[in-house]
């Protein structure tokens, strides 16, 4: 699995540098404007996971899945590496947001949000990856667009409800951890499904 993970990281690093730069600008903006960091965090999740879908595009362009299947334990290892990458990215997003919330004067009441976004990223990966393995990257992208649109609608509804209720509500840590746990569980189940899809797939 180590080699497959390294390949994925090598391919992602140029994109991550760009995403990292954008996210750093967003962090700075959030400190000096009324826009909270969580407003931007959703974009970090989207960038990261659309980058992961980009890896499937690389796979398809180079027939990598077929080549990898001819390596020892290659079918399983390439799937496991990609799920490990999803965990790494979700962990990274959670950690950066936690640090940002800790140093932000308004962030203390929202300490559950970093875990929520980490969990959300894992849920994206859990649903998109089996689709990519089964149907190809294009359907995975369509799914990502649908889930982003849904998230935006839910976010808007939540904001309106919050304002109607007399201001912003805290987002407790336990709720964030619960969502993160759900994301981890979804990812573990999804990994099993993807391994089974790849084991049977004609490449």
């Amino acid at each position, binding site marked *: *699995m*180590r*080699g*497959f*993970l*390294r*390949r994925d990281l*090598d*391919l992602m690093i*140029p994109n991550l540098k760009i995403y990292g730069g954008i996210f750093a600008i967003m962090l700075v903006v959030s400190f000096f404007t009324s826009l909270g960091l969580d407003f931007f965090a959703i974009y970090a999740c989207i960038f990261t996971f659309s980058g992961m879908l980009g890896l499937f595009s*690389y796979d398809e*362009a*180079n*027939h*990598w899945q*077929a*080549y*990898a*299947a*001819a*390596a*020892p*334990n*290659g079918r399983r*290892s390439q799937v496991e590496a990609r799920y490990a990458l999803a965990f790494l990215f979700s962990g990274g997003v959670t950690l950066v947001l936690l640090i940002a919330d800790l140093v932000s004067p308004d962030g203390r009441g929202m300490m559950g949000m970093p875990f929520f976004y980490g969990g959300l990223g894992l849920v994206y990966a859990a649903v998109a990856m089996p689709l990519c393995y089964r149907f190809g990257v294009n359907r995975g992208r369509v799914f990502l667009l649908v889930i982003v649109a849904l998230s935006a609608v839910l976010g808007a509804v939540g904001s309106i409800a919050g304002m109607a209720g007399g201001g912003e509500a805290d987002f407790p840590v336990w709720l964030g951890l619960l969502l993160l746990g759900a994301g981890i569980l979804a990812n573990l189940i999804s990994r099993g499904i993807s391994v089974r899809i790849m084991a*049977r797939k*004609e*490449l």
Partner: protein
Amino acid sequence: MEYAVKIDHLCKDFGSFSLKDVSLAIPGGTILGLIGENGAGKSTVIKCLLGILRRDSGEVSVLGQEGEAALTEVGYVPDECPFSDALRVKQVGKFLGGVFPGWDETLFGHYLEKFDLPAEKKVKELSRGMKMKLSIAAALAHRPKLLVLDEATSGLDPVIRDEILDEFLAFLSDEDHAILISSHITSDLEKICDWVVYLHRGEVTVSGAKDELLDNYGKLSCSRADLSRVEPALVVGKRTGEFGCQALIRDRAVFQQAYPDLPLDPASLEDLMIFTTRGDRA
């Protein structure tokens, strides 16, 4: 281990195309060339052998083992470079070290040097020939016993092709090693192969030791009247033109005894392919 590869009665049905009852065997220390026109099923045989495609029926054994167990000792070179354009040559070596248990980074470096592949260059900056050399370096650097090459020399200039063919011959200096190579460039295979299997529309049409095959077949150039005298059972395929005919003849010795007045030229693998595929049936 008697055979590096043994395929018995392999069948694979795709609906519009099917591989029918393909059998072949590669003894250790030899090269088998899989020839056939585009779409004849060469890549399908290779993919079934490596488990990239699931076979419908038949038996496949690689280096005396079945299933994934043998893949540690197989070097695979697909027809297209499998490494992303965005990667650097040296990155390919680094990550493949974590994919193949027997990976030898020093040996990979040696091949990069030998093939003039700059480690710092990105794959997208390499020519098609250089990409193919990179794939071959990657296949050889984990010290395989069996090399499987799918159209590895197609689209390359003659100098690079010759260089690559020399590398294959060097690989075979160890008697434990064997090569399965598919190509429609029959001149390459004629240079290096010990065995030839000719696939046509998913079926094995001709197979055997290359030298015996070439000895057994001959090419006849004559008039229509002369061709009409020839026993049809001896004619594999024929092409009739305005000024005469050409035919591929089997059982060269029998033919020369029966028709001493008709001159027979040696046949090439290309003749074998063309007359079987495009020639009018006898």
